[in-house]
C-alpha cells in the first residue's frame, strides 16, 4: 500500500512541475498518471525546441483535493485558445465538483502557455518518443488553423471516449466520499487510482481511440464486473461449503440440493451468461466488421509485413511508407494486409483488434480513428528473432493535414520507396 502511495505521489509531483507549460485538458485522475510521467520527462525538453513546429503535448494532471482546488481557482478562468472546448471543461469541472463533494474529486486542470514561439499544442493521447521525428519533418507546413480545429475535435472525441468509464469512476469516488470515513476514503481512492491509472498507454486497448476499440473496451468492463460477481459468488459458496457441520444432509435433501445446484449453477448460469454475453458481443462484433461504410469512401491501405518491419502502401496516392501509417481522422480505413515472409499480425490496440498477415492470403481490417493522436501498433504474432521490435506508429490527423502530408510525400516519393525496395 505504501508502495502504491509513493508511486502516486511521485507521479503527482512530476505533473505539478509540468503543469505550467500545458494546455487545458480535463480528465479524471485514473487516466493520467502513466502518461504524465513520460510527457513530463520526454516531451518537455522537446517542447522548447524551435525547429519542431508541430508538437503534441498531452498533459493531464491528477490532483488530490487541495491541489485541485488550487488549480481550479488559479487557472480555470484563464482564457483558452479555443473557447468552445474551454467551456466544456469548465462545465465538467463543475460537475465533478458537485458529484464529489468538492473535496475528494479528481480532475485535471492544465493551462495553455501563451507562447511566444510558433508552438502548437494538440490534445491527444500521445507518448510517442523517438519514432516520430521523421514524421514531424514531413509535416512542417501545418498551419494554425488546422491545428486549432484538431484541438477542438480532440477534446470532443477524447471526452466522448473516456466518459463510459469515467462515470463509473466518478460514481465510485462519490460512493467512497459518502459512505466511508475520510482516511479510509483517501486510502481507497489512492488504491483505485493506482489500479485505474494503468488503463492508459499508447498501446492500451482500454484507452480506445476508435469505435471498434471502444466497443471492445465496453465489452471488457461489462464482462469484468459480471464475472467478478460470479467468481466471488462461487468462492463464497466454496468457503461456506467447507464450514464444519455436525450432521450431513440426509440423502433426500442432498439429492434435491444437488439437482438445484447442478441445474441452476451448472446449466442455467452458464447458459444465461452466454446468452447475455452474445447479446452484447454480437452487435459489438458486427460494428467492428468492415461492411458498414456510412457514405464516406474508405481509404485503402495495403500493408505488407516483413521480418521485421511494416510497409504501408497507399494505392490511391502511390505512396509507400515504412513503420509509419498516416490516416485522416474519422474516415474509415480499409487495411488489406499480407505478409512477405512469415506470419505477422497487424494490431493497433487503440483503434481495433488484430488481423494476422499470412503469406499467400490477403486479410482485411477496418480502422477508424475518432480522435487525433499517435497510436502505437505492434506485431502480435510471433515472427522470429526481432518480433519484439516490430513496432509501427499510426498518426491520425484531420483531413487537411492528411492531404498536406500526401502532397509532401508526392514531392519526394523516391526516398521512402527506395528504402522499401531496398528491403524487399
Amino acid at each position, binding site marked *: 500500500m505504501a508502495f502504491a502511495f509513493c508511486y502516486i505521489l511521485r507521479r503527482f509531483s512530476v505533473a505539478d512541475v509540468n503543469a505550467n507549460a500545458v494546455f487545458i485538458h480535463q480528465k479524471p485522475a485514473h487516466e493520467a498518471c502513466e502518461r504524465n510521467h513520460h510527457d513530463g520527462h520526454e516531451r518537455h525538453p522537446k517542447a522548447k525546441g524551435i525547429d519542431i513546429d508541430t508538437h503534441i503535448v498531452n498533459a493531464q494532471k491528477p490532483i488530490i483535493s487541495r491541489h485541485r482546488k488550487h488549480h481550479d481557482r488559479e487557472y480555470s478562468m484563464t482564457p483558452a485558445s479555443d473557447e468552445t472546448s474551454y467551456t466544456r471543461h469548465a462545465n465538467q469541472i463543475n460537475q465533478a465538483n458537485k458529484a464529489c463533494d468538492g473535496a475528494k474529486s479528481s480532475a485535471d486542470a492544465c493551462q495553455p502557455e501563451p507562447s511566444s514561439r510558433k508552438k502548437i499544442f494538440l490534445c491527444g493521447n500521445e507518448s510517442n518518443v523517438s519514432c516520430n521525428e521523421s514524421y514531424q519533418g514531413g509535416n512542417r507546413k501545418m498551419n494554425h488553423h488546422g491545428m486549432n480545429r484538431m484541438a477542438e475535435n480532440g477534446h470532443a472525441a477524447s471526452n466522448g471516449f473516456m466518459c463510459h468509464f469515467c462515470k463509473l469512476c466518478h460514481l465510485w469516488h462519490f460512493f467512497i466520499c459518502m459512505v466511508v470515513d475520510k482516511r479510509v476514503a483517501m486510502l481507497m481512492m489512492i488504491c483505485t487510482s493506482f489500479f485505474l491509472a494503468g488503463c492508459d498507454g499508447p498501446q*492500451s486497448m482500454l484507452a480506445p481511440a476508435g469505435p471498434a476499440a471502444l466497443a471492445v473496451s465496453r465489452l471488457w468492463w461489462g464482462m469484468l464486473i459480471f464475472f467478478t460477481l*460470479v*467468481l466471488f459468488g462461487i468462492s463464497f*459458496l466454496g468457503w461456506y461449503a467447507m464450514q464444519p457441520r455436525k*450432521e*450431513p444432509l440426509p440423502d433426500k435433501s442432498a439429492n434435491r440440493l444437488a439437482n438445484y445446484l447442478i441445474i441452476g449453477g*451448472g*446449466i442455467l448460469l452458464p447458459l444465461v451468461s452466454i446468452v447475455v454475453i452474445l447479446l452484447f458481443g454480437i452487435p459489438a462484433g458486427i460494428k467492428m466488421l468492415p461492411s458498414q461504410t456510412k457514405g464516406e469512401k474508405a481509404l485503402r491501405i495495403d500493408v505488407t509485413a516483413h521480418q521485421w518491419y511494416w510497409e504501408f502502401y497507399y494505392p490511391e496516392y502511390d505512396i509507400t511508407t515504412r513503420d509509419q501509417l498516416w490516416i485522416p481522422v474519422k474516415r474509415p480505413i480499409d487495411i488489406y494486409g499480407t505478409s512477405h515472409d512469415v506470419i505477422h499480425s497487424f494490431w493497433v490496440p487503440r483503434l481495433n483488434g*488484430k488481423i494476422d498477415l499470412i503469406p499467400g492470403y490477403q486479410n482485411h481490417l477496418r480502422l477508424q480513428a475518432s480522435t487525433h493522436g499517435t497510436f502505437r501498433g505492434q506485431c*502480435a504474432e510471433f515472427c522470429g528473432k526481432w518480433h519484439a521490435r516490430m513496432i509501427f506508429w499510426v498518426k491520425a490527423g484531420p483531413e487537411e493535414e492528411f492531404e498536406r502530408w500526401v502532397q509532401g510525400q508526392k514531392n519526394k516519393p523516391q526516398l521512402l520507396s527506395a528504402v522499401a525496395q531496398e528491403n524487399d
Partner: protein
Amino acid sequence: MEQANTDMLINKHKEFNEVWGNPRGIKALTIVNHTTMGIRFLCTSGVFFLIGGLLSMVMRTQLALPAQNLVSPDTYNQLFTMHGTVMMFLFSVPAMEGLAMYIVPKMIGARDLVFPRASALGYFCYLFGGLILLSSLMFSMAPNTGWFMYTPLTSTAYSPGRNADFWLLGVTFVEISAVVTAIELVVSIMRTRTANMALQHMPLYCWFVLVMSLMIVFGFPPLILGSILLELERAAGMPFFSPGQGGDPVLWQHLFWLFGHPDVYIIFLPAAGIVSTIIPVFAQRPIVGYRWIVLAVITTGFISFGVWVHHMFTIGIPKLAQAFFSVASMLIAIPTGIQLFAWLATLLAGRPVFRLPMLWILGFLIIFTAGGLTGVMLALVPFDWQVHDTHFVVAHMHYVMIGSMLFPLIGGIYYWLPHFTGRMPSKMLGTLGFWLTFIGFNVTFLVMHWTGLLGMPRRVYTYAAGLGWDWPNLISSVGSFIMAAGIAVIILDFIVLARFGRPAGSNPWQADTLEWATQTPPNPYNFISLPECPTRHPLWEHPNLQQTIAEGKHALAVASHGRRETWGSDPISGKVREIIHLPGNSWLPFFATLMLAFVCITLLLRVYVESLVFVAILMLILLRWSWENGAHPKAAPDAKTLPGEPPLHSRTFDGPGLWGMAISLLADGAIYMALLFGWFYLWTVAPNFTVPSHPLLSTPWLIASGVLLLITGIGYRHLCQKIRKKQIQSLQISLWIIAIIGGMHTILLIVVFKTAELELANTAHDAVVAVLLIYQLLHSVVAVIMTMMLALRVAYGYIGQQALYEPIVVEQWWLYTTFTYWITFTALVLFPKTWGG
C-alpha cells in the same frame, strides 16, 4: 492361530513375489510393473517441471524491467518455446498419465495394466524423447519458434538450423509414449475391472481417465501427422505448408490446434478426476450427481474436439465459422459448470474435514473458476480479436493450466503420498508451501491480465519503458519468485517426508476406493486375491476388505503356476469372462526404445542410411516382442487353470489384444482422417494449389492392386469365421496364400508409385499424394508381415486347436487396410474426376 495366519500371509507374499517381483540393479530396466512405471513417470515429469519452471524464472527476470538485456532475443525465444514445450509435453500429460498408470489398476482391482511391456515402452519413449528435446538446450540449438511451431517461420527458409527438428522429432517421440499409454489405459479400464464392477460402479477417476485416454487417442494423431509432414517439408522439401507451391501455412495451424485444444481438456479431465476422488473422501459422503458428472465428462470430451478454431479467430476465417466456434467454445462452460457445482453440492451435503489435500482443492476451485471465466471472455470473438496473443491470454492460460492441473495434481500427490511412501506429509510445511504458491501465483498472473489489456503482446523478449507495462511486469516477476519459493517448500516437504514422515498405516484418510485396500507402499501385485466389487464405495461398505484380500479369501489367489494373472471382465457389466495372463519383465521395451532413439538422433543428424539400419533392428525387436505371446514358452505354455475358473484369454476368441488393436486403429484412423483433411483442405482452400492436367496415378493398376487387396481382406475375414468355428485344417496354407496375394498387391502399389513420377519438392499436390500412398503401402507391408508371422506361429505350434486367438486380432488390420485403400482411391482418383481437377 495368529502366528499361523501371519506365516500363511508371508508365504503367500513370497509366492506372489516370485512371479511379480521387481529385480534390482541394471535389471531394473526390465521392470514392466505399473506401480514402478507410474512412479517413474511422476518423478521424471517432476524433474521436467522444475526445468520448465527454471526457464520461466529466467524469462520473468528478463521481463521484470523494461529494456533489459539479460538474455538475447534468440535465447529468450528458446526459453519460451522450451518452457511451453516442456510444460505441455514433458510435464502435464505425462504426469497425468503416470498418476493414472499408478492409480487406475488399483482402483479397479487389477494387478497390472493390460499391456505391461507397453507401459515400459511408453516410459522409455517419454524419457528418451524428453532427453533429446532438452539436450538441444545444451547445444544452444533449442527450438526457438514457439511451442506452436507455426509455419512458415519453422520452414527451412526462416529456421535453417536444427532447432525445429529437435522439436518435431523429440515431441513426436514423446507423443508415441502418450498414445501408447492412452491405448493401454482405455483397454485396462474397459477389460480388467475386477469381478462385477459394472461401469456404473466404476470410481469417477476412472471415468475421467477413460475419457482423457480416448481424447489422447483421437487428439494426438493430428499433431503426429503434422510433425511428420513438417519434418518432411524441412528435410525433403515437400511443400505441404509453403503457399508458393500450393501448400498452406494455415493447414499446420489446423492440425496443431486439432491436437492443441483437446490437449487442454486432456490435462484438465484427469485433474478433475482427482478432485472428484478427494472431495467425497473429505466431505465424508458419496459424491452427489455421479451420473451428471459422467455425462458432463463425456460431453466435454466431444465438445473439446469442436472448438479448436478459437485459437485462430484472427487469421481471417469466415465470420460464420467464427460464430460457430465461438458458441461451441462457450458451451464447454456447461459441462464444466456441472462438475463444479456437483463438487460444491457434495461439500455442502457432507461434513467436510479440512486436511492438507483439501487446501489444494479449494485453491483449485477459485483459480480454475477464474480461468474458466476469462476463457468464456476469450471465446467472444470481438474480445478475442483484441486480446489474442497478448499477456491476457498468457494469464488466462496459466490460470487454466496451473489452476486446473497443477493444483489438483499436488493435492492428489499429497492425498496419495501415504500410498506411495507409507508415510504422512507434514502439515506445517505443506500449508506454507500452499500459501506461498497460491499467493505467488495470483500476484504473478492476476496482474498479467492487466499487462495484456494494456497492449503487451506475448513472446516479446523485452519492451520499451513508458508504455504502462513497467509496474505490472515487475509485480508479476516478484510474484513468480514467491511462487517458486512455494514450490521449493513443497519439494522440501517431500524430502522431509521421505526421511522423517510418520507411518501412515492403512487407509489414513478413510477413503472409499479400492486402491487403499493394498499395502502402503503397495506390492507389485497389488492384491493377493481379487475381490468382487459391485459397489462404488467398497471400503466404506466393507471396512475389513484389506484384510480379507491379504488373506487370499477372494479370487485368483494362486501364483504357483508362474503366470501373472488378472481378471478379464465384460466391458459393461464387469462379469468375469476370462483370466488375462500378463507378460513379465523384459528387455524388449528398453531396447526397442533405444533403437527408436537412435532413429530419432540419426534423423536429426540427417544420416538416413544409419536411420534405416536402426529401423530394421527396431522391426526385428518388435517382431520378437510379438513372438513372445500367447502359447509361447515365455508367455503361457500350458493353459491349466483351477477348477471353476474361466479360461486364459489366449485360449478364447476375445482378449485384450483385440481391444488393443481396435483402439490403436482408432488412433491410426485419426492420423488418416487428418491426412485426408489436409488433402481436401489444400484442394479447396490453399491459395496456389494446382492440379496436374493429366492424372498422375495409373488408374487400372491402382484398381488391380485394390482388387487384390479386397480379395485378401475378404479371404482373411472368411478365414477368421472358420477359425471361430474351430475349422482349422488348412490354416497355415491359407495364411501363406493370403500373405502372397497381399504381397502382390503391395508390389503393384509400389509399381504405381514408381511410375507416377511425382514431383515431390515442387507441388503440394504431389507431396500429399505421395504421403497417402506411403501410408497405404506401410499398412499393406505390415499386414503381410503379420500374416507371415502368424503362419510361422502355426508351424511352431503356438497357434493351434487350443490357442486360436491371434489370427483374429490381425483381422481388424486387414479390414482397416482394405477400407482405407478404397477411400484413398476415391480421394485421389474419383474425387478429382468428379470435381473437375
